[in-house]
């Protein structure tokens, strides 16, 4: 098995024992990346930086005392600002932008010795569920339906991250999740993705979409890897006033495999009309696995689930319309060509029309509308009230003794690229139905690959935890992962 397909845990142990060098490990990923161009996952390759970081990691490993992430080659979502390296959020409006600073998450990963292989494809400004809104063209899912060569979406918005990890172009990747953008692509590609509690990971230096919902997290080949990488990403940051100043526990040490006596809730509202029977069957199997492991399974109700999507699609665009106001052609990125006599307003309007893709424009305008005088109360304030009720639903079940909640991760397996091209924008939003509640309530959620559907595509289940309880959540996920024994890999066609 070539080194690029290793887990972080396996690579860490091999690096520490001197069985492989960080340079060789990095080379094996760089080779895989160059052979994987058909996946369109890496959109800015940084081999020079990678090899320099790998050499530094080797020196550190020789000295002993190297952190777990030392020498681990990663892909970085294009949403993270990386110093001197294009950071475009997959948007033409940030074309040519090379930040003069490093995001807190990538700084922490680099301080821990991690290696950056390049920047990964995504939906423009993280707005999308299929990677098709990217200015680079879509990333492609390494998985295909049995006996078919139809190209499938890796999901979104962290689709490039998911594709790269699933295709073994890197050992792991960073992702961000505003409404499901880590968990849905993880489920579509048979990998693990965790969205931590809001405030666990600093948002500083990550291009903002919806500030009260955005959270970064790892996308990995195993739950153990998610624990190791989250450890390096998490922690208080004075530069993000919403990052929590509370201790970060040892996540890997929490993977005991013992969940006896714990209570796992099964929310009846997640049993949606028209849900494919395979998703239903997968969920039932997951419930059995949890029960077999000695946990108590309890039926619960989260009555406001149905309102989560409409509330999300008011709040997220409202915040986005404010956050994206900064792209005006003045300080960075693209400025439109102006005609004789154009003033500053024409510059703004032409720049934003040129630079933003259709979905981003739509969301900015929806946000502008729901925040405008006369509609603020009817839409935005009402959505924030509904959000309070959604959060209260979770608080109630946790207060009643539920330790975590098990649900499907997505309403379907990966769909074909272009299949939704003629659909109403709202149809695409339905992808987030099981994941948005978690962002609205600020909770941690993890997607774990559990099985394959009849067409041979991966399906995932989601576990939702109590706030700040990623350690326990990872342990439940670890149990689900061990019992599911998901080992399938995409058959190589690229």
């Amino acid at each position, binding site marked *: 098995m070539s080194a690029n397909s290793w887990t972080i845990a396996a690579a860490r142990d091999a690096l520490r024992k001197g069985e492989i060098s960080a340079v060789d490990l990095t080379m094996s990923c760089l080779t895989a990346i160059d052979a994987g161009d058909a996946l369109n996952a890496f959109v800015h390759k940084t081999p020079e930086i990678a090899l320099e970081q790998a050499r530094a990691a080797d020196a550190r490993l020789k000295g002993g005392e190297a952190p777990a992430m030392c020498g681990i080659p990663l892909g970085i979502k294009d949403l993270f600002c990386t110093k001197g390296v294009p950071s475009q959020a997959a948007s033409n409006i940030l074309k040519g932008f090379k930040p003069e600073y490093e995001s807190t998450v990538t700084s922490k990963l680099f301080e821990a010795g991690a290696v950056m292989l390049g920047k990964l494809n995504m939906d423009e400004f993280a707005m999308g569920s299929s990677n098709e809104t990217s200015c680079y063209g879509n990333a492609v899912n390494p998985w295909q339906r049995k006996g078919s060569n139809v190209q499938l979406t890796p999901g979104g918005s962290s689709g490039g991250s998911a594709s790269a990890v699933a295709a073994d172009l890197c050992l792991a990747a960073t992702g961000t999740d505003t409404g499901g953008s880590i968990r849905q692509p993880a489920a579509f590609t048979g990998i693990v993705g965790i969205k931590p509690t809001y405030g666990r990971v600093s948002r500083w230096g990550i291009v903002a979409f919806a500030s009260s919902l955005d959270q970064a997290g790892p996308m990995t080949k195993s739950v153990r890897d998610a624990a190791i990488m989250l450890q390096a990403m998490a922690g208080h940051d004075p530069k993000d006033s919403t990052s929590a100043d509370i201790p970060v526990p040892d996540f890997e040490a929490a993977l005991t495999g013992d969940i006896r006596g714990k209570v796992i809730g099964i929310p009846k509202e997640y049993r949606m009309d028209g849900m494919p029977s395979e998703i239903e069957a997968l969920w039932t199997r997951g419930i059995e696995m949890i029960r077999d492991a000695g946990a108590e399974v309890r039926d619960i109700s989260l009555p406001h689930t149905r309102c989560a999507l409409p509330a999300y699609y008011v709040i997220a665009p409202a915040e986005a319309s404010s956050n994206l106001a900064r792209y005006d052609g003045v300080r960075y990125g693209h400025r439109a060509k102006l005609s004789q006599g154009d003033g500053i307003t024409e510059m703004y309007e032409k720049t*934003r029309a040129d630079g933003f893709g259709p979905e981003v424009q739509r969301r900015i305008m929806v946000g502008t*509308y729901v925040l405008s005088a006369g509609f603020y109360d009817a839409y935005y304030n009402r959505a924030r009230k509904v959000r309070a009720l959604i959060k209260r639903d979770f608080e109630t079940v946790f207060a009643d003794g539920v330790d975590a909640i098990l649900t499907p991760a997505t309403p379907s397996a990966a769909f074909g690229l272009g299949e939704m091209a003629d659909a109403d924008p709202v149809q695409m939003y339905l992808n987030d139905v099981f994941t948005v509640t978690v962002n609205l309530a600020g909770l941690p959620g993890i997607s774990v690959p559990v099985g394959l559907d009849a067409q041979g595509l991966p399906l995932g289940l989601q576990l939702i935890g109590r706030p700040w309880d990623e350690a326990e959540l990872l342990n439940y996920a670890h149990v689900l992962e061990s019992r599911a024994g998901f080992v399938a890999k995409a058959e190589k066609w690229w």
Partner: protein
Amino acid sequence: MAIDIDTARKVAKLARIRVEEADLPKLAGQLSGILGFMEQLNEVDVTGVEPMTSVTPMRLKRRADVVTDGNIQAQVLKNAPDAREGFFAVPKVVE
């Protein structure tokens, strides 16, 4: 609530995004569809509920009001589409 063409034009103006007249009907239709989807929120009883203002109840940290950064003019201007004499340059704003 249906968005008419005038409202779509107004929203595009507020958002500072140029939309051609010919594209306004399609935009109005899409915005109406999205806002129609949001109408579901009206079915929820929100009497007496306070709007959620922070995800995690916490008091924002404070720090001394002192300069902690600066003297990085070149870095600030580095990515500007047009910078001259140490400033961002834009089309004429005042006649």
